[in-house]
């Protein structure tokens, strides 16, 4: 029964620290980094004019109808 609160507090402080740091790390390397890479990849070879012509041809732009 000695140091009842101290023991519990140590355990929970350590646990809380590990859980929060762990979840932050998991998010960074599971979600954030892949997303950044996906955007970099996409815009490396992105041609907006070609995209515009494709959308125009499909007929979704009201002010730029396909000829």
């Amino acid at each position: 029964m000695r140091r009842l609160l101290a023991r519990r507090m140590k355990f929970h402080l350590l646990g809380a620290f590990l859980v929060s740091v762990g979840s932050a790390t998991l998010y960074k390397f599971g979600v954030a980094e892949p997303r950044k890479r996906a955007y970099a990849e996409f815009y490396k070879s992105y041609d907006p004019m070609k995209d515009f012509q494709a959308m125009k041809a499909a007929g979704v732009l009201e002010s730029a109808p396909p000829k």
Partner: protein
Amino acid sequence: MLASRVFSLVGRRSISTSLCLRAHGHAGVVKAEDFTLPGYVDRRDVPLPEVAFVRDLSAQQKALKEKEKASWSALSVDEKVELYRMKFNETYAEMNKGTNEWKTILGGVLFFLGLTGVILIWQKHFMYGAIPHTFSEEWLSAQTQRMLDMRVNPVEGISAQWDFDKNEWKK
């Protein structure tokens, strides 16, 4: 005044029986006014409760308490345990012991989830009308085609899963 009316309706007998119900397990009857006095609790964070567990000591226990006033090395192990049990109801180990309550709770939760599921299925089958025409296969495929034409979510979303050159979903 209303309380006294209720009293006469209920009758004196049931009031006294409710007091008698409290007098099980312990030495000594617990009356209503006892709850205003310091009481005994079995709690992890209260290591030394305000009163001892056993309130009214028998003659034997009183003799033991007298013996406790002398040197403790004169007490036998059984006497020490008896003194402990007079002072405390459960040991910390007994207090902290887990129960099987979680099984009941989990069972109850799952049961009511299942019951809700049954209700929902019944509703879908017997109560609700037809879903809107915009959920038909033709409409959905035309809708998806339009989304691809507009290049919706081209980086990570739906247009990223479509191969525009081969006109099919990416593998």
